[in-house]
């Protein structure tokens, strides 16, 4: 399964994603420069975290119009697996591949620490190796992860089981205290309706090896591989 990691000026989690796919998952992986205009030959695309274009105007707003993004959109529309992590999630929102938008954290502070997450669904190519309702730990590192959508969109997300991860306490309760940024309904990650696009603020690539503090993120990449090999 060949992975592509899209690199924008200002991406800074691209090497981490590359490392996990290459060394931990053991699959072929290549960087894709934002000025490229082909994703031919790739089976899955990772839009990594960072500060693409210095977060100018709005997070992800400029990256969204990079030449490669039209290819990412076409790839997703054909059913290809696309995951956006942190700034990658913000870019997917700006590109309209996922509904909603990001606001500044309600605390106005940059939050950088491990958080508890509840896996809300394992009915997706990204989460199939988790148990539904399972509490996992992944690190967050963002200043604008306050997910916003209107009530109608939230109803749709709930109705079609599109919420992948929520912020929770160690017991799995989605309390306001466990919400690090003010996200609506404690949302940390969402799927599109077709379930082939995932956006999430926490960083699975930073917790994919116990040496780095945790490995709860690894099953996400392993899920993608299993989905691909099993024909999703």
């Amino acid at each position, binding site marked *: 399964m060949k992975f592509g990691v899209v690199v924008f000026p200002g991406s800074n989690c691209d090497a981490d994603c590359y490392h996990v796919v290459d060394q931990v998952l053991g699959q072929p992986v290549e960087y894709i420069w934002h000025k490229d205009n082909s994703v031919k030959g790739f089976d899955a695309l990772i839009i990594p975290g960072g500060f693409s274009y210095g977060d100018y105007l709005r997070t992800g*707003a400029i990256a969204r119009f990079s030449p490669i993004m039209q290819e990412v959109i076409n790839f997703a529309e054909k059913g290809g697996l696309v995951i956006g992590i942190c700034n990658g999630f913000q870019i997917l929102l700006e590109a309209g591949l996922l509904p909603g*938008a990001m*606001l500044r954290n309600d*605390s106005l502070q940059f939050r950088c620490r491990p958080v508890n997450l509840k896996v809300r669904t394992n009915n997706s190519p990204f989460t199939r190796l988790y148990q539904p309702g399972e509490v996992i730990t992944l690190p967050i590192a963002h200043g604008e992860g*306050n997910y*916003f959508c*209107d009530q109608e969109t939230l109803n749709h997300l709930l109705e079609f089981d599109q919420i992948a991860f929520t912020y929770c306490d160690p017991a799995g309760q989605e309390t306001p205290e466990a919400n690090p940024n003010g996200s609506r309904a404690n949302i940390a990650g969402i799927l599109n309706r077709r379930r082939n696009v995932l956006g999430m603020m926490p960083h699975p690539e930073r917790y994919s090896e116990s040496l780095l503090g945790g490995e709860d993120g690894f099953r996400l990449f392993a899920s993608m591989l299993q989905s691909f090999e099993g024909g999703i």
Partner: protein
Amino acid sequence: MVGKVFVTLKKEVLDPQGDTVRKSLHTLGYDQVEDVRVGKYIEVKLQGLTPEEARKKLEEMCSRLLANPVIEEYRLELLEDDAK
């Protein structure tokens, strides 16, 4: 010609930055302050367009890039004489 674009968060969207500024103004004794919204101001210099065309283009720019309609709204002003 200069387009002046004011982008602010929609009323129904919480503005934590504005809220913090409001609290700070209260601390300074400005009890009259009811609400503060923090936004962006963008100047776009244009050439070769009539005012009508310029306005239309600016609207397009706002909806495609300058503002995010999910969370933001914008207001436009057109300054036909760009000599300050």
